């Protein structure tokens, strides 16, 4: 069997949302737009649960809940108050009017379902009897209405005490509360504010107490309580300070306050606890006296006083002011006895000794770095080593002189020499040459200028070296050359040129051919592939 739900909300969107969430299975979903309508429907329909919106056109959700709880027909129906996201739920007010559950809007559909299926069957519905008897707004059923609201006992708090000097009970409570704070325990007068705060947090008098005690307290005999009497009671209870008393310096009351546990006492105890040389009853001469100082100002004052009176005692006060119930001389003696101090001193020496190797290490590191830097071939060294192959005399060339005109000339010469050496080496190695018609003549004439074979120069050399000027231009100018040599050279140079030209032509032709082939083949290939794909598609 489903649950009968009454949903009171003025928003049709929320009503529909509630219906979506809860109108499932065999649940029965009833809606109401206003509070009054909701109450009427609740009486008539007798739902299993009532959802009430916090803000309704005619009433607030709290008022509707209050109305439902006052009706005998609906007082046992669980009430669920739906609060909006902008107004927080007043828990106290909710409890007063009998709200069982509060859910914030917008709600989760699954949570609502869980609420109906799991929480609702186990809920203990609040009835007016269960509500707080002293809470404002709720009285036992059928006795609460607007007419008798003034008869409801008022909650007594500090704020509404005012001039009611007749409240002896409150004052007695207050005094009793104050007696808990033993003023003699501390030289500082504790503020009484906390006790007021405590009083304000909770109602002072419950309804039952009100019935019994208030009548007595309203008797005429006990109404006059003056502030003086309160102060006197306070003074008696604390046994210490009255407004008339002068606040004496703490030092003058030292005897009275000797029983107060002091920070310095604690310090002495802790210092002596580990070493039972001193007892508290009979402190030795060098044991420190407990310090009767509680504030920094007093500490300073005392320090100056002691300095004026006695230098030796001032030092002890200084030590005490640092919480030191430890006699430094005794500590030093102990340390010397145990050898700890010497060890420490040795350690200190070690530290200084250890520090020196560090400096040595640093120096060594610096030296190593210098050596390393020295070992790095500088530009000068590099240049020296570079030119050492050229001439031993030129090893002394400085980097500063490198860019002089002479050096440039030398460099050029050396490069020319290098190239010549390379050429000689190449000449010495047998090179297979394509037999040419002119070569036999070259071999016949040994005086002929050396033949320049197609030497394999490096790219760098080709780029850096000035290209050996083609002798074709030079040769004709030179008169001593023979005709054979001229012919041979011209033929050879032509051959080189021819080779270059041929290679270029071949490259271009091959490129063009390849492009032509690609342009012919690729579209055909693509066309054929497309046709095949189309055939496949058509076949399918």
């Amino acid at each position: 069997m489903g649950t009968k739900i009454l949903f009171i909300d003025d928003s049709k969107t929320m009503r529909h949302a509630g219906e979506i969430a809860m109108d499932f299975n065999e649940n029965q979903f009833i809606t109401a737009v206003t509070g009054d309508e909701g109450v009427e429907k609740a009486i008539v329909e007798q739902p299993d649960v009532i959802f009430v919106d916090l803000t309704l056109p005619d009433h607030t959700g709290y008022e509707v809940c209050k109305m439902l709880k006052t009706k005998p027909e609906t007082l046992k129906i669980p009430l669920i108050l739906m609060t909006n996201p902008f107004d927080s739920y007043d828990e106290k007010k909710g409890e007063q009017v009998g709200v069982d559950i509060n859910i914030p809007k917008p709600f989760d559909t699954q949570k609502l379902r869980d609420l109906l299926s799991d929480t609702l069957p186990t809920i203990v519905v609040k009835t007016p009897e269960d509500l707080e008897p002293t809470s404002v707004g709720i009285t036992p059923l059928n006795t609460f209405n607007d007419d008798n609201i003034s008869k409801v006992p008022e909650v007594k708090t500090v704020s509404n005490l005012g001039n009611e000097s007749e409240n002896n009970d409150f004052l007695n409570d207050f005094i009793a509360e104050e007696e808990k704070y033993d003023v003699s325990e501390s030289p500082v007068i504790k503020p009484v504010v906390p006790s007021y705060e405590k009083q304000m947090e909770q109602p002072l008098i419950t309804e039952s107490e009100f019935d019994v005690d208030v009548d007595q307290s309203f008797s005429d005999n006990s109404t006059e309580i003056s502030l003086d009497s309160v102060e006197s009671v306070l003074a008696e209870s604390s046994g210490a300070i009255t407004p008339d008393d002068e606040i004496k310096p703490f030092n003058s009351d030292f005897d009275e306050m000797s029983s107060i546990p002091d920070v310095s006492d604690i310090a002495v105890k802790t210092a002596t606890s580990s070493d039972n040389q001193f007892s508290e009853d009979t402190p030795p001469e060098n044991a420190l006296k407990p310090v009767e100082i509680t504030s920094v100002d007093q500490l300073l004052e005392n320090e100056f006083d002691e300095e004026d009176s006695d230098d030796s005692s001032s030092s002890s006060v200084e030590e005490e002011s640092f919480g030191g119930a430890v006699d430094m001389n005794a500590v030093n003696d102990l340390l010397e006895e145990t050898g700890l101090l010497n060890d420490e001193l040795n350690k200190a020496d070690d530290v200084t000794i250890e520090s020196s190797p560090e400096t040595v290490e640093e120096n060594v590191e610096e030296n190593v770095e210098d050596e390393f830097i020295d070992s790095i071939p500088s530009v000068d060294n590099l240049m020296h080593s570079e030119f050492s192959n050229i001439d031993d005399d030129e090893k002394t060339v400085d980097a500063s002189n490198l860019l002089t005109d002479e050096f440039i000339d030398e460099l050029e010469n050396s490069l020319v020499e290098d190239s010549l050496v390379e050429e000689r080496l190449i000449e010495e190695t047998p090179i297979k040459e394509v037999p040419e018609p002119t070569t036999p003549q070259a071999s016949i004439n040994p005086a002929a200028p050396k033949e320049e074979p197609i030497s394999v120069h490096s790219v760098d050399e080709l780029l850096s070296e000035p290209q050996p000027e083609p002798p074709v231009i030079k040769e004709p100018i030179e008169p001593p050359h023979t005709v054979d040599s001229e012919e041979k050279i011209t033929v050879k140079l032509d051959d080189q040129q021819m080779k270059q030209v041929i290679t270029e032509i071949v490259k271009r032709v091959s490129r063009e051919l390849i492009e032509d082939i690609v342009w012919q083949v690729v579209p055909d290939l693509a066309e054929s592939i497309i046709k095949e794909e189309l055939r496949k598609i058509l076949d399918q």
Partner: protein
Amino acid sequence: MEYKKIIDPKKTFRIAKAMASDIQMYHKEEIEEALKNDTFFEVIENEYLEGKQLLEQRIDPDVLKQDNYLERAIVDIILKYSSNVKSTIW
């Protein structure tokens, strides 16, 4: 084209939530206005019907009968995440 129908209620609710999220994303201003005017379900009716058709295509009818997935998703996704909209409906 026939799809294999989904028979898992959890998956169905997940798809419905995705649909609701889409509705919220693409009709943000309309939804805000509808919430202010308390006409939310009227405004998103077309989107709701469209989503319902899609669900009927993909979800097994027996599963769809079990619960009102899309409507719940609309409440859980669109309404729940529109709580910042100042309206009298809350």
